[in-house]
């Protein structure tokens, strides 16, 4: 393969390109869904192909083909597209400098999930579903497992040649109960097909799906009979199962530098964050420390190199509440006279790399969970994301969660509420954070469906957080007349 790639890169250099890269991806997935103790779906998928990106006179062209025998034709197509781009371009694209790298990266793992029998996987999901059915009266139970194995080969005209073998695994369970004209859901360990990480099958064993099934089921059943969550302004504790999406939407997306420069203006939107905010904008309270860390073990956004051949990094995003850095690619970093911090990734072989989150993590604080609650006279503890929405500049957000626990006089009362929703304004919300639990409570979750770009691309990213406290947050919408 290396010889083939070098040949086409030589050809492109002969055509006068400023720069070109070739990316090969062979992605294999296995997806299992069980429902009410039956197999609903077992699906294996494979997608293999090559994408060629060229910069010709500072203009970009990209072509992707599933046919590896058509490298030259694909290269010619990318050149023709770059020539067309040139006719509507104000200034040349400049790529930030990077190291020339020849390397191989492999996701650390113990058990290859594709070597574990399907029967073993199904037996585990059925056992977890059986526990749920036995523990409470439910409308429906579900079980999920997802595995992915991806080989990536990257070569460019600067001399880099990088091979990566990436493995992902994940799973979860879900219970549904009907109330009075109402449907309630509880998920474990997190919603939308469970947690997913870069790891082998060992993560499935660590999830303890069977052991957590009965509690999930009982809570769902109780939720179907619970009162509606009250509306008003309350002190709020967000569990890491909700902070995942809060970080994703209100920190992860706004700090994508291509978005800041307007690349997504017509589709995913822009950002309230701008380049003048670096080093002085108070994004959150002093307790808020956020990093983009593509090196953290197990993160769904963990890898060796991004899809421009830039090594994975750990970058400070917010330090002591102050905004420090964007997520960058080579073409966006150059506009700040910086080097890329390695976040340019493509969904498969058939898409161009664009700025994507890696693992955007809220670093732990120093509180025990009991201490986090202790300072709340009356408040609510929200768990597990159910819905999300944020405006096109990432300012006004609204999230729904699966469940809320009542906090009174610094303690959980045991009372639960259904349909909790909260809303806020991004910087005000993060500045209202006055407590974060310590590293014992810190959890890392995967988000495998982060959408961006046209044609649409789905990225696999991660978020780590410990439960955190926010003051006077607007809860519910039913009091707006």
């Amino acid at each position, binding site marked *: 393969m290396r010889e083939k790639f070098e040949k086409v890169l030589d050809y492109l250099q002969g055509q006068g390109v400023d720069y070109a890269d070739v990316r090969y991806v062979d992605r294999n997935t296995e997806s299992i869904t069980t429902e*009410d103790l*039956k*197999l*609903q*779906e*077992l*699906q*294996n*998928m*494979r*997608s293999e*192909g090559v994408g060629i990106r060229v910069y010709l006179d500072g203009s*970009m*062209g*990209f072509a*992707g*083909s599933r046919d590896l025998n058509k490298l030259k034709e694909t290269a010619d*197509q*990318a050149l023709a*597209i770059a020539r*067309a781009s040139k*006719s*509507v*371009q*104000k*200034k040349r694209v400049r790529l930030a400098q990077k190291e020339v790298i020849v390397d191989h990266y492999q996701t650390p793992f113990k058990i290859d999930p594709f070597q574990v029998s*399907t029967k073993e996987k199904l037996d585990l999901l059925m056992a977890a579903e059986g526990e749920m059915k036995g523990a409470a009266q439910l*409308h429906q139970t579900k079980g999920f497992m997802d595995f992915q194995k991806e080989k990536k080969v990257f070569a460019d005209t600067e001399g880099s040649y990088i091979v990566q073998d990436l493995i992902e695994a994940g799973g979860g369970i879900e219970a*549904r109960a009907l109330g009075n004209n*109402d*449907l309630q859901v509880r998920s474990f360990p997190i919603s939308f097909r469970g947690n997913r990480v870069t790891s082998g099958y060992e993560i499935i064993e660590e999830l303890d799906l069977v052991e957590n099934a009965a509690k999930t089921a009982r809570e769902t059943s109780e939720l179907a009979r619970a009162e509606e969550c009250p509306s008003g302004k309350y002190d709020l504790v967000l569990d890491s199962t909700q902070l995942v999406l809060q970080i994703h939407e209100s920190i992860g997306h706004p700090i994508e530098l291509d978005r800041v*420069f*307007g*690349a997504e*203006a*017509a*589709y995913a939107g822009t950002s*309230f964050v701008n380049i003048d905010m670096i080093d002085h904008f108070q994004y959150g309270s002093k307790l808020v420390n956020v990093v983009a860390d593509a090196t953290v073990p197990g993160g769904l956004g963990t890898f060796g190199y991004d899809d421009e051949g830039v090594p994975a990094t750990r970058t400070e995003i917010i330090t002591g509440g102050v905004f420090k850095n964007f997520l960058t690619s080579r073409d966006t970093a150059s506009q700040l006279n910086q080097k890329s911090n390695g976040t340019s990734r493509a969904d498969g072989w058939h*898409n*161009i790399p*664009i700025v994507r989150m890696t693992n955007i993590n809220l670093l732990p604080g120093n509180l025990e969970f009991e201490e986090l609650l202790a300072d709340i006279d009356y408040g609510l503890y929200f768990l597990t994301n159910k*819905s*999300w*929405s944020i*405006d*096109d500049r990432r300012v*006004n957000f*609204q999230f*729904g969660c699966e469940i809320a626990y009542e906090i009174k006089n610094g303690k959980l009362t045991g009372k639960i509420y259904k*349909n909790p929703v909260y*809303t806020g*304004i991004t*910087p*005000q919300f993060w500045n209202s954070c006055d407590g974060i639990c310590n590293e014992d409570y810190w959890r890392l979750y995967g988000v495998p469906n982060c959408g961006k770009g*046209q*044609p649409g691309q789905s990225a696999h990213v991660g978020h780590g957080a410990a439960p955190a406290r926010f003051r006077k947050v*607007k809860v519910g*919408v039913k009091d*707006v*007349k």
Partner: protein
Amino acid sequence: MLSKEQAYEVIDRVLAKVKGYQALILINAEETGLTRFANSEIHQNVFKDDLELEIQIKREKKTARISTNQLDEDSLKVAVNQVIANLEIIPAGEIELPLVDYPTEIAVEEVDPGLEQNFAVEKRAELIKQGLSQLGPDYQAAGSLALNKKVLALGNTNGIKRYARGDTVSFNTVVMHQSGVSGYAESLSDQGDDLDLLAQFELADRKARTGLEPVNLEPGAYTVILEPLAVGDLLSYLAYTGFSGRSVQKGMSFLAGKIGEKVFGENITITDNHLDQNTISIPFDFEGAARKKVRIIERGRAKELVYDLASSIRDQVITTGHSVGNRDLGGFPINLVMDSGDKSRNDLIAGTERGILVTRFHYMNIIDPRQALFTGLTRDGTYLIEQGTIKTGIKNLRFTESMLQAFNRVTGISKERQKVPHFYGYSYVPALKIDDFHFTGRTEENKEGF
């Protein structure tokens, strides 16, 4: 793109490899050329050529499926071996899914050659350049122009064959004033001479100019006029949460237990109709079943639901031919048509004492599916109407509203309708005037913009 003959050759080649099994072979091929622009220059320009070949084999209540995008003999052999191995080990499902056996063939091969002539990569750049040249010095534009070619083909061991080619061109643009105020336009067609790009740029530009110096409005209940892009977004989420038999079976649908009952105002009729020439038709579904017209909401009454095979068997009805290859969704309507009214969009505005005109929504999501309670934000063109005229632009607002209530408060429907994108297809919808639509937040709280 794969011709009918090429697609059928691949299907027959794979069917021969799974001899002895009941099988269905499905090809979903796509070729996309997309030119994207931002800050009034092309910044991304891409082409991709891909397909997905899915092999399904069945025995009694078991179905196994696998997909690959590689059609060489070695890759096919690996895929076939794996799907056969999977069929042996998986437990039986809840129901036995039969293979479609009628009619023998459905084929749609025609596409407008004008699409390729008018929207090849060089033409796309030329058209975008022309459109951008119309903008004033204080305005910039972002957007995309895409030529998309699609083939859906399938065959099964009952001897049926299906082939549909569906090519489209789609365009969207947001025109932005340097103050940040923006206007939006979007259009799509399956005809090469139907999409007037310059008119779309002009519309987005006019919307941006109309919205300059926007004011902040307090959240609350307002009369709204939702333009077709906003209506289409609501309809997409209604379809996702509630228009399928499967969504009712799951207990998720706001129509659960309400079939035959009046759920919306009598002025609301929503049909899934692939025969309507304003939608882009694929006359069969991912299981090979012929697509049927489904009267989902008729004069406000919940009438019929869409089905795939599995969900139809559960409800003991005949499939409506709405499989999109996603078992969890069951069926999904991809050709939604909402009946028009008798007033023009301008008449709706002229008849509004005080209200809000919405161009489109952003980032909609479902808060409570059983109540069809959705939230989302206005974007790229939101205006205050007073005494029948557009008075000023408004800063973006968040709505949180139950569609079960809102669609009972529709007081006006435009006679003009527009093709708008939908999760899996295209809808054809009018503008709606709705009373007491609930806005529950706004995007700007202070002078700094947040």
